[in-house]
């Protein structure tokens, strides 16, 4: 196998890795906010469920969670899991990252001084307006460094998709390396992850800079 065929075979895997990455972010960034808000719900039962969800997600390996989402329906209910591989993978990633983002959001929301809420309340803003106009913009600025860390971890975590034999770049690298007895696929995969993270770090830095207009 020439280097160029190796590269073109692996390119499809890179595309799938990017797909997992983007779908996870699209799902987990907003879901994390919902989870963070539900965690402070008026209803004790909701709070308990959300806290249990967060502590289970954070207390178990993502790899195990992926296996549970994929094989769970079969072992628990005897359902067929044909065609379930990709949905299970994305579900597992989204629910995992939402829990981590929720904790970051919660920390950010709690770090905003109570005076901001009070000033808004006296000015007559509704609760929703206060959150959207006054609190959230300040939260986003404060949590950017933690979110960046999490997003970079996600780039690397996408390789856990190999657990479900999903053909992303890392799974392909292993297969091609074994069949061709070559080390090259790992080098290619390594460069790919590195470049992907470089792009992510660059983009996040630009966002942080853009939010630097106030302190």
């Amino acid at each position, binding site marked *: 196998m020439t280097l160029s065929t190796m590269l073109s075979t692996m390119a499809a895997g890179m595309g799938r890795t990017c797909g997992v990455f983007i779908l996870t972010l699209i799902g987990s960034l907003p879901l994390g906010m919902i989870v963070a808000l539900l965690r402070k719900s008026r209803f004790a039962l909701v709070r308990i469920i959300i806290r249990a969800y967060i502590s289970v997600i954070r207390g178990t390996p993502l790899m195990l969670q992926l296996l549970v989402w994929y094989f769970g329906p079969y072992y628990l209910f005897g359902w067929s899991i044909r065609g379930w591989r990709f949905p299970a993978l994305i579900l597992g990633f989204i629910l995992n990252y939402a829990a981590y983002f929720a904790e970051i959001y919660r920390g950010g929301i709690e770090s905003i*001084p109570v*005076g*901001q809420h*009070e*000033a808004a*309340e*006296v*000015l*007559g*803003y509704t609760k929703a*307006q206060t959150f959207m*106009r*006054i609190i959230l*913009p*300040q939260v986003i*600025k404060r949590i950017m460094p933690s979110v960046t860390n999490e997003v970079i971890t996600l780039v690397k975590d996408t390789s856990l998709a190999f657990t479900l034999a999903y053909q992303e770049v890392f799974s392909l690298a292993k297969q091609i390396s074994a069949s061709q007895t070559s080390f090259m696929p790992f080098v290619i995969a390594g460069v790919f992850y590195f470049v992907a993270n470089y792009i992510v770090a660059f983009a996040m830095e630009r966002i942080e800079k853009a939010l630097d*207009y*106030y*302190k």
Partner: protein
Amino acid sequence: MILEMNHIRKHFDDLDVLKDISFGVDSGEVVSIIGPSGSGKSTLLRCATFLEKIDGGEILYMGEKAAYTDESGNAVYVHHQQLRHFRSYCGLVFQQFNLFPHYTVLRNLTDAPIHVQHREREEAEATAMELLGKMGIKDKALAYPYQLSGGQQQRVAIARALAMRPEILFFDEPTSALDPELTGEVLKVIRQLAEEKMTMVVVTHEMPFAKAVSNRVIFMAGGVIVEQGDPLKVFDDPQEERTKQFLQVFER
């Protein structure tokens, strides 16, 4: 009467912070509230501005009841839609300014008028610029709060409250967080508002200011009004022992 607070009671857990406080504020009147730290001054302002709920008594704005005590002795507030209407009567200036750091000075002054009161942007901006002119910081309209001195920030906070066109403006120790050389510029704008007959209630430790500017001074201690009246009388000839003791500390 713009504001009437009758028999106000408020406690935190088993700490009685306000014990049967009654007072009223007439249109155009400037009332100073003085008293030792922990006597309940901030809590009183927070109850008047609905940041804190009373446990007993009644609050009236413009003669209309915003909160009252029912037969069973519990404080009852009007429906929250009506409460928003009562809120619009009052403005509050905080010790810590509490400006919105992500908004420019101008937007701090226009955001609530536009999004809460649904006023036209042009009108809100014109009003804001006029207020900034009065505060002597027109040139700071496009600055962010962090770029201003404490005295300038507090003047923005006063302008932000005024931009809502309140009937009455409350100040909770507006100069206590400022370096001594910056208190003058803030007191000056409050004095100017007093001359324009803005109705105000000012909690302060600036005794010469309270004496010179207010129509009435209230001395609070331990959750009660110990003495109130004409500032010249309260400051120069206090009747209560507690007031004398408190004022002595400031005479040195």
